[in-house]
């Protein structure tokens, strides 16, 4: 939240306040609590481009019930913090993926699903695909064509472990 009106005080007050807030957030107890909250509240955006979408839907279904981990598929990118690329990204769709990723608020994570997300899968060497890791910072890859729902659940657990171990790095940005 930037106060564009500015303050009467001299100096970069906004910058200082942001740095102070970041310093406070990076302290151990607050950081631990924050990481715990983020770990159990991963809300994914639907970004279905291929057949992996069916498996992703099954992950949240009664049998595999990913909501146990606090994994709640939600509507709009503004409220989510996890992006699952489900399948092949064509060049056109890659642009859309980037837009959706930019709409999500920090801290955010990307999981690339399916072998198409790794290196193109059956579209390997095609002129019209783009690998998700070329345009987005992917945290976890799920191999398989398409991967089973258990694999998606494992990816969620891996991401949770990763957040627990490494913590979340938040770049405090100004208002956009």
């Amino acid at each position, binding site marked *: 939240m*930037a106060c564009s009106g500015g303050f009467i005080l001299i100096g970069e007050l906004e910058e200082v306040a942001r740095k102070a807030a970041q310093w406070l957030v990076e302290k151990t107890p607050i950081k631990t609590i924050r990481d715990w909250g983020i770990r159990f509240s991963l809300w994914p955006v639907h970004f279905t481009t291929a057949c992996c979408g069916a498996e992703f839907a099954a992950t949240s279904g009664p049998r595999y019930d990913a*909501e146990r981990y606090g994994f709640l598929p939600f509507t709009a990118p503004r409220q989510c913090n996890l992006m699952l690329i489900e399948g092949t990204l064509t060049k056109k769709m890659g642009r859309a993926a980037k837009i959706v990723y930019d709409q999500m608020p920090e801290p955010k994570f990307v999981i690339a699903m399916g072998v198409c997300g790794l290196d193109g899968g059956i579209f390997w060497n095609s002129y019209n695909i783009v690998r998700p890791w070329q345009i987005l910072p992917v945290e976890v890859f799920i191999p398989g064509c398409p991967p089973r729902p258990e694999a998606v659940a494992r990816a969620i657990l891996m991401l949770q472990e990763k957040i627990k171990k490494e913590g979340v790095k938040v770049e405090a940005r100004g208002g956009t």
Partner: protein
Amino acid sequence: MQVSEIISWLINLLFYKPEVFCPIFYPGLVTILALLIFIIWLERKIAAKVQLRYGPLYVTRKAGGILQLLADLLRYMFQEPIIPKTVDKIAFIAGPVLLFATAYVPAALLPATAEFTGLRSELSLLAVLALLTLAPIFDIIIGWGSNNKFSLIGSMREGYIVMSYEIPMFLSTLAIAMVYGSLNIVEIVEMQSRCWGILLNPIAAATFLLVALISTARFPFEIAEAETEIVMGPYTEYSGILYGLLMGASYVKFYVLSMLFALLFLGGWHPSITWLEKIHPAAPGLVVFIKALIIMVFGIFLRAVYPRFRVDQAIRVGWHLLFMLSMLSIAYSLAVIWLVG
């Protein structure tokens, strides 16, 4: 000695002065925050049970994931609140805060028990109703301020819905007030020690319950923020803690309306449990809270079993069914007054 005096004075001020205790603790803020964490978890859990799932579990495994909403809240708090360049900044930031405030203020005016009430007035029922009508202004303001077509459509829908539910809400409440001949919530509750309001005027009770569901966007009337049609309604552009406030606001309003339902129709704190008063003067008010909780659980259970109405169907329900029902409830009240005297 000085310190202990100050502490005892503070404790006295905080816990035994109804003007301070009511807004902050029992019908007020602390209860609301605890309830928000509990009720949304319960909503997800009930939906999961209906769909043969477990629902939130691993966050606190032994306690069935009851802290799930705490985790969500923490995430929202530490998330980046995005303020897009195209929005109207003042409306965008002030809207959610004011919406939550207007949803919360009526809760502070509700009585805890007969002796322990924050607001003593002959017109407390009217005051709560009048404050409840202010929230839609901010819904429209945030929809307009977001400068997004889905937000605008959502707030348009909210406006249409408001027009269809506000009159039945007033009429059904006034019907029950007519039966008891008072606009004071405490007096109405005291008069219900013999006969509950729902028995005296069941039509008004049914109307009020339906209106409570419509005005707080519970299923089957979740029309303003229909996820499958218009992304998130008026809340599309919101992220971070501002979205948390918006999501909380409708639950707070539902809590206020459920408390009002329990007080007006379900006998309030009757049957009163007198030995609870030894613990704290506000403790007998827990009976009201339990009744309100039952109403809330009913309301959130509907999410799991009902689909959503279209907006025109909901408006038709408002004007054709609820308006007529509220008129009928007034006539019924008049008949009851005429018969009983």
